């Protein structure tokens, strides 16, 4: 089996897991939720296998390098880190519901990666990318992004959940308590912040190796800094000013839009980093 075949299969499994999570949530059934989690595990393992296989395939082509070098490869990796973060929360905090907001993300990411406009050919590394820092930089950034993605999903849940005791029926009311959501958002933001910091820092060290400057205000760098500053504000508002709940959820959504722009939007602007 080739890595691209594996990636098509897991896209399907991620989609299946998403449907099952939603089904389990709407109809209040536990079993589909369990199957969905099992499916997510299978898909994440498949995802990892696919990445390793693609790595091996690149060596067979004589241009061996870690598959983290273009948009397609970054999307595949992103899907895996989100699935793994989701599973971590599922097991660590025993929160199955999180699948409802977490599982669509890897599915959408994989579906996007399979669009024809995203080039999936294994390309050799151009000189600037031939650095060990590439791997740590990309990995740290995407682990950070995936935590922010989940924080975003949870924040959305927070925002659509009606407050007050009157509306305690229907599927919306099955969203867990505000406190749990709020705490989970906070945990994910802290986790994401640490990894985004590591990502920015490894990127800076790499830039200093390759171009002799650790910071050059290129659009991608700047947008990652903007993202970092937004989440830093969130953390301070919460730790020092005691902000909770809705305000934090809104800030977490704004932060995630900055993440998305750093990832995709920057390609619309000129600069070194745009994946082409």
């Amino acid at each position, binding site marked *: 089996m080739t890595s691209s075949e594996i990636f098509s299969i897991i896209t399907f499994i991620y989609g299946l897991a998403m449907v099952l999570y939603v089904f389990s949530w709407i109809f209040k059934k536990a079993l589909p939720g369990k199957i969905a989690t099992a499916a997510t595990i299978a898909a994440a393992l498949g995802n990892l296998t696919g990445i390793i296989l693609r790595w091996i395939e690149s060596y067979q082509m004589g241009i061996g390098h870690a598959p983290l070098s273009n948009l397609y490869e970054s999307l595949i990796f992103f899907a895996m880190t989100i699935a793994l973060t989701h599973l971590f929360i599922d097991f660590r905090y025993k929160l199955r519901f999180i699948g409802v907001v977490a599982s669509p993300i890897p599915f959408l990411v994989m579906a996007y990666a399979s669009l024809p406009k995203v080039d999936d050919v294994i390309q*050799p590394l151009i000189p600037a990318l031939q650095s060990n820092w590439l791997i740590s930089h990309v990995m740290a950034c995407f682990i950070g992004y995936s935590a922010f993605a989940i924080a975003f999903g949870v924040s959305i849940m927070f925002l659509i959940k009606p407050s007050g005791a009157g509306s305690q029926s229907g599927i919306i009311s099955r969203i867990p308590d505000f406190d749990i959501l709020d705490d989970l958002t906070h945990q994910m933001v802290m986790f994401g912040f640490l990894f985004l910091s590591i990502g920015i820092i490894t990127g800076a060290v790499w830039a200093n190796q390759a171009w*002799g400057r650790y910071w050059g205000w290129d659009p991608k760098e700047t947008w990652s800094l903007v993202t970092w500053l937004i989440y830093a504000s969130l953390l301070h508002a919460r730790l020092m000013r005691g902000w909770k709940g809705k305000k934090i959820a809104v800030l977490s959504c704004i932060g995630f839009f900055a993440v998305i722009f750093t990832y995709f939007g920057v390609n619309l602007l000129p600069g070194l980093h745009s994946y082409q």
Partner: protein
Amino acid sequence: MTKSSNPDGFTFKLWKFFASVKLSVFILLSLAMTSIIGTVIPQNENPMLYQQKFGEALFKILNTLDIFDMYHSWWFRFLLFMLTVNIIVCSINRLQATWKIIFPKQPSFKINQFRKAKNRQEWSAADSPEQLKDVISPLLSKRFSRLTVQSSENGYILFGEKGRWTRLGVYAVHLSIIFMVTGGLIGSIFGFDGFVNIPEGESADKIFLRNSQSEIRLGFEIKCDDFDFTLYESGMPKEYRSSLSIIKNNQSVVQKDIIVNDPLRFEGINFFQSSYGKMPATKLTVTFTEKSSGLIYNKAATMGSPVEMPGNSGTLIVEDFRPSFSFRGVNLTNTFLCRMIPNNGEPSHIIIPADYPRFDMMRQGDFVISISNTDFKYYTGLQVTKDPGVPLVYAGFLFMIIGCYVTFFMFHQKICVEISADKGKTTVMTAGISGKNRPGMNTVIRRLSNHLKKITQ
């Protein structure tokens, strides 16, 4: 620090202003928002382009605000300065209190704080307080660095504590920001960012700054012994490699092959592989073939200086060289751009492609001109930088990562296990408090209680 000042005094007010977290959130968000400007409006381009794009009036306003070089503008620097002062003032303000918590003269526990804690758990046990204390205290001392055992009216109270020092994590994070800002400042004052192009076999002892026209003398010579590039089968670049040597006092002191991502560093100056190009030798041969007679005249020429044309008909200046030149959609490759000044008539620009000696026939002149003996050479384009602020910035990076980890994932834990007997019934109570009402504390208590329940019930 602030207690002794007059509460109405200006200094005190200023101090309070800078000690507020509202200010930090405000500055952080201002930096985030203003940084976006520079990603939407390309920075440091030719002023003409801006003028065309924005119109005269808007251009003037934006230019006054330094929008076209905003990351070096006074107001952006001012924001960074405010950020630094904010962090310093806040840290000084809080460090005293934190210090007292971390190094107290006498550690004190207030049992009532624990009794009120939300994460409190209670259950009844079979054994006597005495026995339980002997079982539980070795267990706690394994998990907590400090353990105090006190006896109470009807039993024992055990206090455990650890991770006081983790309260310093936040100071490490904030210090890291000061390091980075200072390191950046040092770099921009004492460092430089320049470039130099060196042909194979030649050397340079000065470089050119990127953002101004000035030159910098290196104090030694940098020589390019060799330059090579390799391509993948697909034609994508695979490697650029320059063999460089440093020559000091006429002696070669360092030799190194540099590639992208592996620079040469010498005496605080770094040489990075940045670009390459092709240039002709300084001495060229210009050949004039007279159309009417077929006579051939060879003349030596150098770029930029005039060559007498045969028959006293005028002069020719080889002005410029292009490794590729598009002519009606065809790439002529190595092309010289020349200016011809006839003795009678208007000067004109003509192009002479070195690889197509008969190209000039098209021009319908008296002579067909070609250029040979070009002896092309590659030059390596080096980025040359010096940045004495880097060690400080890297120290900041390290502090940032360690500090964030400590602040987010470790915390000061204080726990209490109270064992009391009332009418022959023993009750065990566990509770924990931490600096901030951390959910992590609740997890610690939940796990501890589950463990203790197993062995006491």
